[in-house]
């Protein structure tokens, strides 16, 4: 059996740059950061099922999430409410996840995003973190990771 070749950090960086460049570009693109261990209180994920199974997870800081929501909605940060942040971060992981899905074996389906704002991480049982990309946008930490279901083989390039 041939192992699935997962998108690597370069692929994910390209996708993140495209998403941020299209909709958040006026405030600069995320830059690669040295790996960090910070706990990121805002987490969103989408799951992929079918030809490949796993999850795409986006984590960021409270301030980063609020800033992104304000840019996406063209509103002042002071006017942004929690529902806006959940919507914005959910839509960002939806776009990143949808584009990562297109690089993986199909056909497969993408779930609606799950978002956690309260500092509690989203757990993905029966899966392992296969690829992680740590970034900084507007001075705020962002992490994009791909979690592969442990029931299948898969390895980064």
């Amino acid at each position, binding site marked *: 059996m041939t192992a699935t070749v997962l998108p690597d950090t370069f692929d994910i960086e390209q996708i993140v740059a495209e998403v941020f460049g299209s909709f958040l570009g006026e405030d600069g693109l995320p830059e690669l950061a040295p790996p960090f261990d910070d706990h990121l209180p805002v987490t969103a994920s989408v799951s992929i099922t079918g030809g490949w199974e796993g999850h795409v997870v986006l984590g960021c800081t409270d301030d980063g999430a609020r800033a992104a929501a304000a840019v996406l909605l063209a509103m002042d940060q002071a006017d942004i409410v929690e529902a806006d942040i959940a*919507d914005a971060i959910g839509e960002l992981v*939806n776009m990143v996840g949808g584009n990562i899905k297109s690089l993986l074996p199909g056909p497969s389906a993408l779930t609606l995003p799950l978002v956690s704002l309260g500092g509690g991480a989203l757990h993905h049982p029966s899966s392992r973190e296969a690829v992680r990309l740590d970034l900084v946008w507007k001075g705020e930490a962002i992490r994009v990771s791909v979690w592969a279901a442990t029931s299948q083989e898969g390895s980064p390039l």
Partner: protein
Amino acid sequence: VKILVTDDSRVMRQIVIRTLRQAGFGDHDVVEATDGQDGLTKAAEERPDLVLSDWNMPEVDGLEFLQTLRASGSRIPFGFVTSEGSPDMRAKAEAAGALFLIAKPFTPEAFQEALEPLLG
């Protein structure tokens, strides 16, 4: 011309409406729907000339929205704006009667290319 923008994300509806403006289609009327079920209601009530719809939505998704419209006899021009632009999804969209699929993230140029033949 009236355009129905259907997406469960308010953020994305705002971005689509902003991009329509940037692409030169800001003079048209825009109606918003929050999922495929709301889209069916608004399509019947508002009689739009074009539907732009997300694919992944709760309750009634974009594909079911389009299929239900077509089953009811509606020939309204319909295009997807979705984060999934794989060949498989494009084939499904075309088979169901969609005129185009714009993949997120998108640019005003992508909107111009898809909508210019319809809106002029």
